[in-house]
């Protein structure tokens, strides 16, 4: 009691204590998130005038970004690659999460989840380089297939193109997709499956009518978690994407650092964010629909 009364003046009321508590993270978020974001948005409405920046507000960059086929193609390709990564990741993550949730004995589940996170113990860069070693012309994959006599010459469609980007990213984001789906599956009351069986449904129809709808919140979460960061991924397409695997983030980097056109880069960045937000909103809406009627 007496400690509270003699405490620092600013921490007297509960509200003030609360503000004090959030002040540091708030300052952090403002300085490192809101300010740069505002700067990017502001830059996107300026224009580059050779070496100087013309600060009159204009929609020129957006007009160019949406009309130039190069930018349009890059934006579209990023969307497609990200969608492919998301689909590949979630579709492979679901069976794994399902297996761990339904077939691994309870006392071993923690162990399995732990094992699934092991890829995170090494740097992402190292993992990307490892994929180069695996997928390369003389890589592990090709040598094995050649050695087994399945192919006559090394496969070239698996490295330095969009496929390589999808494979590498799908592997990198797998745990992010497995965990939310696993949690959603764990939360399903097992007697619901028995109830479905009892009411005449087989294993497959029970999956479609009970398990999948109830796991949907986890699936939607996994989709968002994978989709949002992959659309703006920069490292992976640069290292394994080759010319055909370049994505919008690579173009943004080029605009900022090579072409010295920060306003154009900013406009592309804002467009990418808008695209991500639109897709995310669709899924949030879907999730709300699936959450309807849940406890």
């Amino acid at each position, binding site marked *: 009691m007496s400690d509270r009364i003699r405490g620092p003046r600013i921490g007297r009321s509960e509200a003030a204590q609360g503000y004090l508590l959030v002040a540091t993270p708030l300052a952090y978020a403002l300085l490192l998130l809101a300010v740069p974001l505002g700067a990017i948005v502001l830059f996107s409405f300026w224009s580059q005038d050779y070496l100087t920046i013309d600060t009159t507000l204009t929609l020129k960059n957006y007009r160019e970004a949406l009309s130039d086929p190069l930018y349009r193609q890059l934006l579209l390709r990023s969307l497609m690659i990200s969608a492919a990564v998301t689909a590949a990741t979630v579709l492979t993550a679901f069976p794994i999460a399902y297996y761990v949730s339904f077939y691994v004995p309870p006392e071993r589940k923690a162990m399995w989840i732990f094992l699934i996170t092991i890829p995170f113990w090494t740097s992402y860069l190292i993992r990307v380089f490892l994929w180069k070693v695996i997928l390369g012309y003389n890589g592990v994959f090709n040598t094995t297939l050649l050695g087994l006599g399945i192919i006559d010459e090394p496969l070239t469609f698996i490295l330095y193109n969009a496929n390589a980007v999808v494979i590498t990213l799908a592997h990198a984001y797998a745990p992010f997709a497995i965990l939310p789906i696993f949690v959603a599956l764990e939360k399903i*009351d097992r*007697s*619901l499956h*028995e*109830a*479905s*069986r*009892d*009411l*005449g*449904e*087989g294993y497959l*129809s029970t999956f479609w*009518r*009970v398990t999948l*709808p*109830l796991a949907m919140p986890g699936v939607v979460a996994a989709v968002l978690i994978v989709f949002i960061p992959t659309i703006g991924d920069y490292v992976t397409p640069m290292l394994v994407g080759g010319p055909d695997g370049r994505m919008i983030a690579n173009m943004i980097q080029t605009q900022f650092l090579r072409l010295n056109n920060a306003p154009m880069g900013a406009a592309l960045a804002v467009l990418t964010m808008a695209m991500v937000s639109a897709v995310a909103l669709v899924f949030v809406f879907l999730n709300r629909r*699936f959450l*309807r*009627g*849940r*406890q």
Partner: protein
Amino acid sequence: MKDTRATARPIITLEAVEKYYGDYHALRGISAEIRQGEFFSLLGPSGCGKTTLLRTIAGFEDLSAGRLFIDGQDMAGVPANKRPTNMVFQSYAIFPHLSVAENVGFGLRRTRLSKTDKAARVEAALAMVGLSGYGGRAAHALSGGQRQRVALARALILEPTVLLLDEPLSALDKKMRDQMQGELRRLQRQVGITFILVTHDQEEALIMSDRIAVMFEGQIAQLDTPQMLYRRPVSRKVGEFIGVMNFLPARATVADETHIEVEAAGLGRAVIGPDQLPGGWHPGQTQSVGIRPETMSILYPGETTDRRVATGVVEDLSYYGDMTYYEVRLDGVERPMTISMKNLVGRPVLERGTEARVAWDARSLVLFA
């Protein structure tokens, strides 16, 4: 009414059913017949195997040995979704992503009914459990009692041969439970389907059942009508589990086929019939007699009786309003016994330490020997 049930054909036949979980022996040689249209209860403490037995009937557990017939069909290898049974789960297992109507109509997908016919069936099932007009509600917006009714409607809509109920009332509060007991009984008479109820509540089993199987440690200790279970338990364990029973050390000798002579501590000598030895004669076992609290009464001063009379002291009492439970220690007996008395006009509650004359009948004794 009871008579027609007694002669009804068996709808479920269990033959020496065994169930192991690894080393754990959950069901030990269960043999029983459950009759068409009866309200049958599996009663026992937790871990006695009653739920396991219900789940083997439903098809959620395989038998380790023995055979199970439902309506004459051997159920070996028949999965749960192909059995003519439906279940009301302890948690109710209401699908949270579906509406009340979608829950109730869940099992109708495989029937070849038109959409309107299905809707009519769902509405009829909801009406049967008193939930008319609730079809459009979200499942999560229901109270505990309503969820239970939805679970019942969902199981009964498929008109199963046998309805299985796994402790359906244990999650409800006392008042709701009393109401649902009556409703379940009424519903069972109305639809005429065999109900098998799993419960650990002996009162619930007595109130609702035509017959009860009392289970201990994976075995059926006694299968009988509620009255016979209460009045003629086959063992001290059954007698203790159902209601309150007083036990007194005793010595018994068989006089002839129809008479058994008993010398019970505190009560004295009595002659009883063979029906009062429901558990049979096991030479060498410690002998005792059991007697229910309400079959005895304490005589007030000046009161006379033509029943047998024993004497003792009131050691303690519990007042319940309508009843008083006295702890009376009979002369020559170590442990006090419970005697219940209705609190009638002119029968004041006795005080501790009162010398009491206890009236009893030889017909109320059960001998465990």
